[in-house]
């Protein structure tokens, strides 16, 4: 039985990494008395996936997990109740439903709070909206590349002294909330320390069907 579970990740639990979250959920399901289906092959693995990796430190009100449980008659309300008792502090199961056709994340909405005066944030948003492009350097241990943040997150909007921003996931990648913050800071010509990032919602889209191609010469 394939189930799509929605969770909130709050408080200190937001500092858990993607891998830690997967392990934690597997253990929580087992503690709640559910057996997880294993994949086939030489090294069977529990079938579980999280729709969209979450940056360490980012809270979430819409964490989506798809998991396959052994058996096909699980009461989903009881599942939420049992999981609520077995998840660690800050990991809150919200609802569960039978998973439909496979989907992928197409984007996410974030709320970014700042430890900065509201008018400075407003100025930054105005300058951001007026910019044609906002190149930000992305560094990883292996490479450096430039990401145009504006392309993925075109319209941040004010929400008090915070902002709400939709970040799209396109075929060639996406931007990170932290990169939106850096882009805003560069627009404001000032430091804009973040006071917390929360993922509010994840937009899902049907998973494209890959057609097998045959080449003829």
């Amino acid at each position, binding site marked *: 039985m394939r189930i799509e579970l929605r969770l909130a990740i709050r408080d200190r639990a937001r500092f858990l990494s993607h*891998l830690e979250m997967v392990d934690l959920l597997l253990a929580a399901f*087992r503690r709640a008395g559910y057996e997880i289906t294993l994949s086939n092959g030489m090294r069977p693995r529990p079938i579980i996936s999280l729709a969209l990796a979450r940056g360490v430190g980012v809270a979430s009100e819409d964490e989506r997990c798809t998991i396959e449980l052994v058996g096909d008659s699980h009461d989903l309300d009881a599942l939420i109740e049992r999981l609520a008792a077995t*998840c660690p*502090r800050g990991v809150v199961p919200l609802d569960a439903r039978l998973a439909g056709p496979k989907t992928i994340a197409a984007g996410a909405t974030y709320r970014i709070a700042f430890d900065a005066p509201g008018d400075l944030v407003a100025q930054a948003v105005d300058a951001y909206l007026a910019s044609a492009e906002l190149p930000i350097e992305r560094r990883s241990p292996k490479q450096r590349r430039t990401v145009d943040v504006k392309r993925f997150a075109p319209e941040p909007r004010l929400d008090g002294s915070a902002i709400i921003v939709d970040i799209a996931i396109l075929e060639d990648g996406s931007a990170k909330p932290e990169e939106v913050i850096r882009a805003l800071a560069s627009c404001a010509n000032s430091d804009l320390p973040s006071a917390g990032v929360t993922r509010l919602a994840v937009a899902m889209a049907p998973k494209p069907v890959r057609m097998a191609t045959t080449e003829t010469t």
Partner: protein
Amino acid sequence: MEHNPLQPRIERLLTQVEKPSRYIGGETNETLKPDASVRIAFAYPDAYEVGISNQALQILYGLVNGRTEAAAERVYCPWPDMADAMRRDEVPLFTLETWRPVRDCDMLGITLQAELTYSNVLELIDLAQIPIRSEDRTDRDPIILAGGPSASNPMPLAHFIDVFFMGEAEEGLERIVEILDAVKTREERLDRLAELPFLYIPARGEQPVERAVFADFSIDTAPRAPVVPYASAIFARASVEVMRGCTRGCRFCHAGTWYRPVRERKVEDVVKAGLEQLECTGYDELSLTSLATSDYSGVARAIKEIKAVKPDLHLSLPSNRVDTGPVALLAAANSRQRSITLAPEAATQRMRDIICKTITDEMIEKAIDSAFGAGYTSIKMYFMLGLPLETFEEVQGIVDLAFRAREIGRQHLGEGGKFTVHISASNFVPKPHTPFQWSGMAPPDQLRVKHDYLRRAIHGRQLKLSLHDVRTSMLEGALGRGDSITGDAIETAWRAGARFDAWSEHHHEEHWRDAFAAAGRDLEAEATRERDPLDPLPWDHVRSGVSKEFLLDEWWQSRAERPTGDCRWDGCSDCGACVGPVRNRLVEA
């Protein structure tokens, strides 16, 4: 929940450091007791992923929270990036459960599992913003208590620790909690604690102190709900301690003396605790732990009963001996596992007689043969180099055994068979309270020559070799048998930047060499120095229960290349460990 002014400051730090989950707490089975009148912070002086896997600390955490009115919380040594950030932002060391400062606790209890964590002990105390030396502490500071196997020679840390706990803490800890609850000033607390025979308080002088033995281990219930670590822990599995103590009498082994006599847990309790732990942790693996699990007389029955309930469970049996059928046991316990570890420790009969490892070449070969026959494809064998009276024959013996094991493997799996014989050789480090406590380590140059020889000889298809770092072994040797002057060197090294010495990327040999020199000592000379049995030892005031006469006799027996029998089967050897109700307790004699 009450406002915690440290919270925003800690959260800011967590966005800047590697693996912030090391510091967040909130794991499954964590205990919160906000209204407790006594707060104890239990510390493991290494990173979270090492410390959370320590079974002893899990036992004590469960015991204080479950059986006393006190609250036990946890703390691990912050990784250097976090420690530097904490110092920069003046954030004091905090417990994982409540993010409250450790210095506000009534007691900081530090477990000493290895000498290479001593610099981290000072790091923890300093990060907690507590004065490093006991003599500088006041009523505002918690009592700092240290226990665990390395506390058996307390002298290297005697300047920094207020109270040392000798031996097994299950019963004594409850009495300590009562005292912390009853009296509140530092001096009163130390006065009352000094009345307990298993505590050593350096400020009160070198009074004799007795090792505590948990006589009721066999009838006590095993812990049911350990804290479940986040994914980064080195061991993430349920574990039940099936037996405490070992009387095999290996002459290099500290635990073999320090945890005598043997006390086995009832099979029914092992099975029940194991199954309950699996249920309340969500683990899919269970480990039956002890110093030598294949010696546990109920092991076959325990495996059978657990497998009857959970046939697909991954059941691990660490620390198996060559001579008690580990292959058959492991095969029964786990059909998925393909690697097996054997610990002959020495490759020649002469050396095994010297160290009292009562196994023969035939037993080793039979175990290897059975392992390959049972389908194992990786055999790891542990050896020690630099043992007392070692000659080149013993080093060559390791090479010969490696090739013999490969030959047996090829007989089963073919010339080009896909299997590994993994030889792991550590360097002998003499430990206090053992028959080899008077022996020196082999000089580092000699060890390096032996390492080079093994590297040249053990290579090729299906063979793998790993060797322990000589530099850290030397430091372990110099610290383990040290005295209070060694303590001065520890402080100097830590002030120079020593921390996380067990991690090769953080170990700086020069800090330690210079620190020993500043204390008027030579590090290598300390490690390699043979002690005269007539000279006093720094830990003479610590009574392990095993008499010094017995250890000395064993030392002489080693020189005569004569092993001593195991008192479980070969009669009492009069070591002194059994007193009153404290004696070997086997479940299936």
